[in-house]
């Protein structure tokens, strides 16, 4: 029986403690920061001519699925009973949600440097020192909801709009794709103002601080956001059983702007020896609970 990833709001007190303890232990062993570096190294923007696999690309979903699975397996080497919980941000929408409690993620940042001061990942706890960051501060930062110019988390309606699109992705398979489930859920637009952020991207903006930058994995809520994104990919597949589960099916040709810049269904997706096609079904490895 594959282990179950649960909604964070339904974790028992003991489950919350075991998840946090495993994450802290991974950090203490030095393994956590390798995940921060990998995510940083594979953030390639679509204005560059290099291959991009993690963002602004059709492999956004399978890349993060495999990344989460590696993280979850690392946690399970510490505590075999732990899975990555997911954060349904269409329901748990405020800094008062139990997600931000002292026994799970801790709260928002305080003061001009937006330093997180509560919970297990506060610098003051002594267990969470930022080593791979964009700024020189060694403490976790957040800016939940951006109080100086409040922004809301993505709504159920916004998710539904993405979910209704029957195409997995559409050319040019980047951040300018005007349709397709992948870019609608990843959330790139060329809009201005607060409408510019959608779904996954908007969650990064709402949390703010480290989650906004290249070193977003420093905030453990990264994993809970991406577990929900992974769950939504699962829901989309069940809703569109006749759609191609991944596009492009074949590598874009030499005449295409995306030649050698995106990974097709049966091409290797670095840094792993794995193809998107290998990651379409996760049920042997984990399931999602209510």
């Amino acid at each position, binding site marked *: 029986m594959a282990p179950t990833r649960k909604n964070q709001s339904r974790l028992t007190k003991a489950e919350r403690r075991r998840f946090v303890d495993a994450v802290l232990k991974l950090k203490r062993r030095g393994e956590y920061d390798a995940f921060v570096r990998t995510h940083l190294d594979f953030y390639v*923007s679509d204005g560059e001519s290099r291959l991009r696999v993690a963002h602004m690309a059709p492999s956004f979903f399978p890349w993060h699925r*495999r990344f989460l699975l590696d993280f979850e397996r690392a946690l399970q080497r510490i505590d075999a009973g732990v899975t990555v919980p997911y954060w349904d941000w269409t329901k748990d929408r405020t800094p008062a949600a139990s997600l931000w409690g002292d026994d799970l993620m801790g709260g928002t940042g305080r003061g001009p440097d*937006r330093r997180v001061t509560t919970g297990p990942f506060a610098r003051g706890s002594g267990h969470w020192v930022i080593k791979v960051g964009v*700024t020189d501060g060694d403490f976790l930062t957040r800016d939940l909801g951006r109080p100086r110019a409040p922004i809301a988390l993505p709504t159920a309606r916004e998710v539904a709009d993405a979910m209704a699109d029957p195409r997995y992705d559409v050319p040019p398979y980047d951040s300018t794709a005007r349709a397709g489930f992948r870019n609608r859920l990843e959330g790139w637009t060329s809009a201005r103002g607060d409408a*510019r*952020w959608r779904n996954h991207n908007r969650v*990064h903006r709402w949390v703010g601080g480290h989650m906004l930058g290249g*070193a977003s994995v420093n905030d453990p809520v990264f994993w809970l956001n991406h577990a929900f994104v992974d769950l939504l990919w699962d829901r989309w597949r069940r809703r569109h059983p006749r759609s191609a589960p991944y596009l492009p099916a074949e590598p874009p040709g030499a005449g295409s702007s995306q030649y050698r810049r995106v990974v097709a269904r049966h091409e290797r997706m670095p840094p792993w020896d794995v193809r998107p096609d290998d990651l379409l079904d996760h049920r*042997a490895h984990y399931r999602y609970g209510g």
Partner: protein
Amino acid sequence: MSRPWGTHGEPERLVDRVTRRHLLGVAASALLAAAEIMRTPWVTREQSPAPAQAPAEVPDGPPAGFDEMYRGRRIQGEPVAVREGRTPESWRITVDGRPLGLMRRADGSFLSMVDHYQSYDTPLAAARGAVDEIGPLQTLSGRHH
């Protein structure tokens, strides 16, 4: 089980490689920062308001650099020569002499290392946006991709 799910294909080697690459990147960034500091004359870093509209690009000409005080921070930017894998218009940006990584999106806008999920129309706007996000107390580590 199938190859991709089952393998942990030499994770240590991957980590080593990634770390080495990063150390090299950080060293290169530090050199860039040092060169930048030596190259530019000392400017008194008093608080001064940013100009309302500092043009970052001149129409029908090569993009112009910028050098201004914004919220007490000195932000400088200049276009750099094309390098392999970079866009035709690559920029070197610093905040108080520390490099700020900048990436280009396919729609022509710019993303900074500080803010990966919002793009700005110009390098200057991206640099100001980064200053807004890091606040008055933190400085950039100089880390690039």
